[in-house]
């Protein structure tokens, strides 16, 4: 028998395949963005007028050097912080807030606009614990804002969309819908539940 030499494989189409793959990955790749908790530091003011804030409107959270959490002078577990903060913010002590569902306890905060969360830490506090607490406090605001967004959104035609989704949609270029209306709702919710979180040095 004659030995046939192996037929030459045509490598000409290899380039096409290569481009196909290249273009596919080019289109689908997303470069990972950093994410984190945004904060605004208070400016240093020379002439500081002491603004009198009623003690009942301040929710003090102290994180000590051993990462123990002291909320309103009482020891608390991290997992209970969110609920406690929500209760404080949504309390509506002077009944001026028409959209709150709080306990209306006169000894707690007057309304969400006046309620301030003050977060103190010590030098020895670990950063991980600090971030966890920040996260829980931001979550508390988000819980209330989400609840409000579901109510307001359904009135304006944005059904089943909570505050976090609204913000996401607002930034999303592919979102089909009335963005100016959405922005109005987002701004309104931000005014109704302002994020007043002070970080004390």
């Amino acid at each position, binding site marked *: 028998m*004659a030995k046939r030499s192996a037929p*030459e*494989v045509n*490598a000409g189409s*290899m*380039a096409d395949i*290569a481009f196909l*793959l290249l273009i596919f*990955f080019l289109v689908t790749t997303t*470069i990972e*963005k*950093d*994410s*984190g*908790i*945004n*904060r*605004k*530091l*208070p*400016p*240093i003011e020379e002439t500081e007028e002491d603004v009198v804030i009623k003690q009942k409107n301040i929710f003090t959270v102290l*994180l000590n050097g051993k*990462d123990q959490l002291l909320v309103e002078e009482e020891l608390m577990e*991290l*997992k209970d912080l969110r609920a406690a903060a929500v209760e404080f913010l949504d309390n509506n002590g002077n009944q001026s807030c028409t959209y709150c569902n709080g306990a209306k306890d006169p000894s707690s905060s007057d309304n969400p606009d006046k309620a301030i969360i003050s977060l103190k*830490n*010590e*030098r*020895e*506090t*670990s*950063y*991980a*614990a*600090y*971030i*966890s607490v*920040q*996260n*829980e406090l*931001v*979550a508390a605001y*988000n819980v209330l804002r989400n609840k409000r967004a579901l109510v307001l959104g359904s009135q304006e035609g944005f059904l089943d969309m909570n505050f976090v989704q609204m*913000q996401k949609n607002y*930034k999303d270029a592919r979102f089909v819908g009335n963005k100016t209306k959405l922005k109005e709702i987002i701004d309104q919710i931000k005014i109704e539940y302002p994020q007043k979180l002070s*970080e004390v*040095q």
Partner: protein
Amino acid sequence: MSKFKKKTDGGIPAISTASLPDIVFMLLFFFMVATVMRENSLKIKNALPVANQVEKLDKKNPVSYIYMGKPSTGYEKFGTESRIQLNDQFAELSEVGAFISAERAALREELIPFLTVALKVDKEANMGIVGDVKQELRKVNALKINYTTGVGDAMTNMN
């Protein structure tokens, strides 16, 4: 005349190059998967804590990074306490202000108010150094900050 021609055994047969693209692709994919994009080479430990109430850091606005953490292996001579890293080198607290000024100088004027400072802090660092840096940032009026974190359950940070 024989039917069976004797093969002329002259010259080396050409090597098929058809498999060359495969090899190149293998390399391409390997590096594609293994590449991590990073602006600075870190001289410190930088395991970020995780949180779930995060917002994306908007790259449309200018971002400056400040890293903090313990010096990593190979840099033990800088001590075991948490240190600040700016760009590619260790820095003192007093250099933070100058760093922000330099970052601002490199920006177009209209973007300066939108400069965000991203704090990339190791989760084992303590708040002392972070508080000091925050104070320095207040002094130079760089008030927009972002605690950069990973995404995950915040309860897992502490253990």
